[in-house]
């Protein structure tokens, strides 16, 4: 049940996309999002769909996995579609109806945009390990250090948080099993009863999270960790030819979408 959460999950692989520098992928996703929000017409949206499907095919991520990730977002997507459907001015599809042709078009495009947005970012986390992702992020934000932004600390916190998501999920699973073995019931009862039933999970979970944080801090200090100053890395990031190709394609995508926008397509 809890194991099915795909948020931020990494699917190991050895495709071209897996091997790209994480910085390239981060910039590419940024360009992709810029392109996505400027894709107004059907032609431009078609291009975005094609690019997304192509990236999925190259990285060997199946539609099934994408759908699994989209499931928790379904409510937001449906709500956006409904709002756009009923609150768009234009020509009604039939005399006296609220629903307009423009509303239908807009709600379809909004659904498409949110779906593509989520899919694109999922492709990033599916193909990049959390470590590589935060490493890339730190390098990209390096210039901000000049402005005394604590970039290293921020990315360290992020990578630790990502690192502990699976651990905490596993822990929650274990505690849930243990309490279920003692007859706990999380599925029936009214709202208050169910909230109360969560207490036997939350108390041990918090206790162990604090214990883990404490142990981690001690382990880091005993290995002389003292922040980002002068720290070297096991895995150095290097741009290679394929990264420049990917970035060029990303820029090309943005340029293409802007051209299509100019012509109203």
């Amino acid at each position: 049940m809890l194991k099915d959460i795909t948020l931020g999950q990494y699917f190991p692989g050895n495709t071209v996309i897996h091997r790209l520098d994480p910085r390239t992928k981060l910039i590419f996703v940024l360009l992709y999002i810029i392109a996505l929000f400027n894709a107004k017409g059907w032609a431009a949206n078609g291009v975005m769909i094609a690019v997304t499907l192509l990236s999925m095919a190259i990285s060997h991520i199946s539609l099934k996995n994408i759908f699994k990730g989209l499931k928790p977002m379904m409510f937001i997507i449906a709500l956006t579609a409904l709002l756009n459907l009923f609150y768009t001015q234009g020509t009604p599809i039939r005399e006296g109806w609220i629903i307009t042709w423009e509303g239908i078009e807009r709600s379809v495009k909004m659904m498409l945009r949110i779906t593509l947005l989520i899919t694109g970012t999922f492709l990033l986390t599916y193909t990049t390990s959390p470590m590589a992702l935060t490493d890339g992020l730190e390098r990209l934000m390096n210039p901000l250090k000049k402005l005394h932004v604590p970039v290293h600390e921020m990315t360290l916190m992020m990578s630790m948080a990502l690192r502990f998501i699976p651990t905490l999920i596993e822990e929650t699973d274990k505690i849930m099993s243990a309490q279920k073995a003692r007859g706990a019931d999380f599925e029936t009862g009214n709202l208050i009863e169910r909230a109360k039933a969560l207490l036997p999970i939350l108390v041990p979970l918090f206790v162990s999270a604090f214990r883990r944080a404490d142990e981690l801090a001690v382990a880091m200090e005993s290995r002389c960790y003292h922040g980002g100053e002068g720290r070297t890395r096991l895995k150095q990031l290097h741009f290679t030819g394929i990264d420049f190709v990917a970035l060029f394609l990303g820029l090309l995508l943005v340029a293409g979408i802007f051209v299509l926008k100019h012509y109203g397509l």
Partner: protein
Amino acid sequence: MAVLSVENLTHTYSVGTPFQKTAIRDVNLTITQGESICLLGHTGSGKSTFVQHLNALLQPTSGLVKIDGEDINKDKYTRRDIKRRVGLVFQYPEYQLFEETVAADIAYGPKNMKLPKDEIEDRVREAAGFTGVDVSLFDRSPLELSGGQKRRIAIAGVIAMRPEILILDEPTAGLDPAGSRTIMENIRAYREKSGATVMIVSHNMDDAARYAERLIVFSEGTVWMDGSPEKVFARTAELSEIGLDVPMAAELAEALRRRGIPLEGAIYTHEQLLNAVRRAGAVPAC
């Protein structure tokens, strides 16, 4: 009289993802009332996955688990009832304590069974007695007690449900020798008094030799061997091949025999070794 039977049980984790892994494969077993079983196996041999099927915490990918001939996974009522009949104590159970007082934590299971209040109190006192939790601790917070005491309270929490079959996953992991011995003795006493079936998951061969009448050895997700301690510990070489030891006493007896001291009978506990050595006349009786 509960008879638990497992038929062609297979469990695969994360079906259809790159992390797919078959943890147990085609397991067949029957467990009858009053047995004292030790489930042995190397880390990752599927022991823990297996025991979670016995009270329907995990559902089989294929195969059946039956109690008295009835499928325990038939519907959600049988799945709930089986948890009262088969009590499972997880590894490091002290991490599941959550109540404000020791007594309340032990009472959590019986309370979930919707028992009357005085019955719950009886059971809490009885379970605490079995595991050596003193009444003076009842109003303390379980979180401020020592590791060994927490472990005892957690085990009492399961015993308080009076399960017909009690399964403990590595009950002595991380405890000092004295603490381990008391817990094992408590479990033995519980079994003798209540007549319950007790199954202990372990990789401590000395515990297995001393406390169990039947050993089930898991290796790579299948039952590698199932029999009495004599039978299992006779296969020293094969045991070490699958990453397990023989009890210290058996190893020592083997070494003595190699040096020409004639020791009789099967030897796998300290007492047996001592008696055999005395019989062989190698040590004067003290």
